[in-house]
């Protein structure tokens, strides 16, 4: 990736971060921590890696994303709005009665959302089904999935892990947002996940572990997965992202309480100003 390209993506990440803080702050409460930890990933996916058409959100030839940690929807909505899937004004309708932007992702409400998620542990299975369907149709589309670290406690992920490897879903590229925090505390205290990348490798996946706030590092891992997928019998890929919950907003960065927290619009505006 060129320096210029990286600068553009870093600017996109900052914009996603600001819009997400703004939208949740405007509402006054929300899942800010786990939204801000995936911002760099979303910037990379939507502004470099993913083939999408905002004019035709269900275009069969597109790449798909299943945001299994559906509570991070507000960050994805920011990226989708910036990409032109819907007007940016919608972002202030977050969680208001009748909104098209609910707390957790809904494929029937929001243009650009490929799967309804929110009950943790279910999205990776759906991503497997989507990847299978694309293969049956002979499409070269990639299916991306983002799961949370706390979400990884759910056993269904490990059923899906076996399945994706068995089916050789080489065009399935998943990410774990390893921000080391879940609702009740640090993951190592609640239910220790250990070296996640080794677990996925043991389940038959290609796995990598990179700094989830380093866009160039994530890009290199995604490009490697794409290169492997061109070969027959490629394995699915899990990219474990070391991230920081609430990254980039001083009022919540690195705090367990940021999973779902209340903060006023003034706090949001101050945090956005600090991002420059």
């Amino acid at each position: 990736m060129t320096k210029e390209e990286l600068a553009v993506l870093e600017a996109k990440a900052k914009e996603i971060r600001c819009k997400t803080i703004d939208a949740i702050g405007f509402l006054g409460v929300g899942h800010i921590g786990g939204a801000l930890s995936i911002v760099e990933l979303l910037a990379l996916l939507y502004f470099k890696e993913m083939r999408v058409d905002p004019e035709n959100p269900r275009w069969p030839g597109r790449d798909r994303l299943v945001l299994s940690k559906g509570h991070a929807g507000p960050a994805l909505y920011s990226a989708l709005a910036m990409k032109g899937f819907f007007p940016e004004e919608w972002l202030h309708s977050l969680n208001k009665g009748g909104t098209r932007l609910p707390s957790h992702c809904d494929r029937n409400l929001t243009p650009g959302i490929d799967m309804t998620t929110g009950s943790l542990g279910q999205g990776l299975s759906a991503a497997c089904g989507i990847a299978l369907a694309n293969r049956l149709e002979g499409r070269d589309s990639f299916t991306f999935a983002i799961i949370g670290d706390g979400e990884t406690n759910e056993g269904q992920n490990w059923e899906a892990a076996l399945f994706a490897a068995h089916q050789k879903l080489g065009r399935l590229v998943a990410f774990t947002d390893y921000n080391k925090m879940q609702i009740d505390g640090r993951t190592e205290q609640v239910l220790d996940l250990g070296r996640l990348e080794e677990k996925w490798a043991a389940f038959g996946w290609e796995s990598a572990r990179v700094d989830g706030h380093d866009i160039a590092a994530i890009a290199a891992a995604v490009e490697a997965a794409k290169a492997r997928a061109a070969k027959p019998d490629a394995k699915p890929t899990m990219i474990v992202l070391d991230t920081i919950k609430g990254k980039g907003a001083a009022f919540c960065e690195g705090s367990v309480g940021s999973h779902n927290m209340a903060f006023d619009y003034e706090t949001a505006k101050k945090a956005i100003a600090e991002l420059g």
Partner: protein
Amino acid sequence: MATPAKEMRAVYAETLVELGAKNKDIVLLEADLMKASGTGPFQAAYPERTFDVGVAEANMVGVAAGLSAEGKIPFAATFGCFATRRVFDQFFVSCAYARLNVKLVGTDPGVSAAMNGGTHMPFEDLALMRAVPGIAVLEPSDAASLRGLVAAAAERKGSVYMRLHRKAVPDLYPAGEKFEIGKAKLLREGKHVAIVALGSIMVNEALKAAELLAKEGIEASVVDALSVKPLDAELVLREARKCGAVVTAENHQASGGLGSAVAELLAETGAARLARIGVKDEFGEVGTQDYLQDRFGLRAANIAEAAKALAKA
């Protein structure tokens, strides 16, 4: 009619093979019970459209949801206990709430689970699935209705739960009879009591009960409900109003399934008095199907007794 040699699971597989020839979007999912479900012929015909996910029902339902999001029409089967209580949230959220199009088939309903016993005996699957908004909940009663309802399920835009009794059962309908989701069938017309029954076991017991009642001068209608949700309110109410007394009969808890669906309808309309034949808040247990039908009171005699009491009240 005589008992046909063909097992219901063979009819299920044949029907899917036929539908799959016309519609390449039909795909099959199994969770290490393909031998039990009898769907080998589909796999033989369309190996690329068959996915055995192993003993992982939650993943099966999630994969089905993903396939459906891309326009596929997945038929996913496992024992009814696993298809409902084990994966209720997966089916609820990833399939039904997501407004997707997954056909979930629960085999071995109620006492037909027989030797597998209480852990495997779904007496509550209909109650669970009736609570899921927007889906259809079906139980065919013979080979023809199975063919018809599988085809109707494939046509329907939206998720479906269907009970499948795997063994051979007596024919009730001629081949080629038309079936629709939400439509019951009147198998026998009477005027004193209407028996509304569900599934092969109980529909056949209801027909026997009608014979017993006829000997005592009580003329019973027998309705094969087929679709618990949506319930055929028109036919049930017509028979209820005509007879003034209704007995429901199901291979399931008397509460939560067909009995409750009919009770709600009758309570809201005041159309008729009601008695319910079904399992009375008990768990299943091991035994032959015969033993279990006696044990849980799922016999023609139980239906006839309830009908008589109502008709004479």
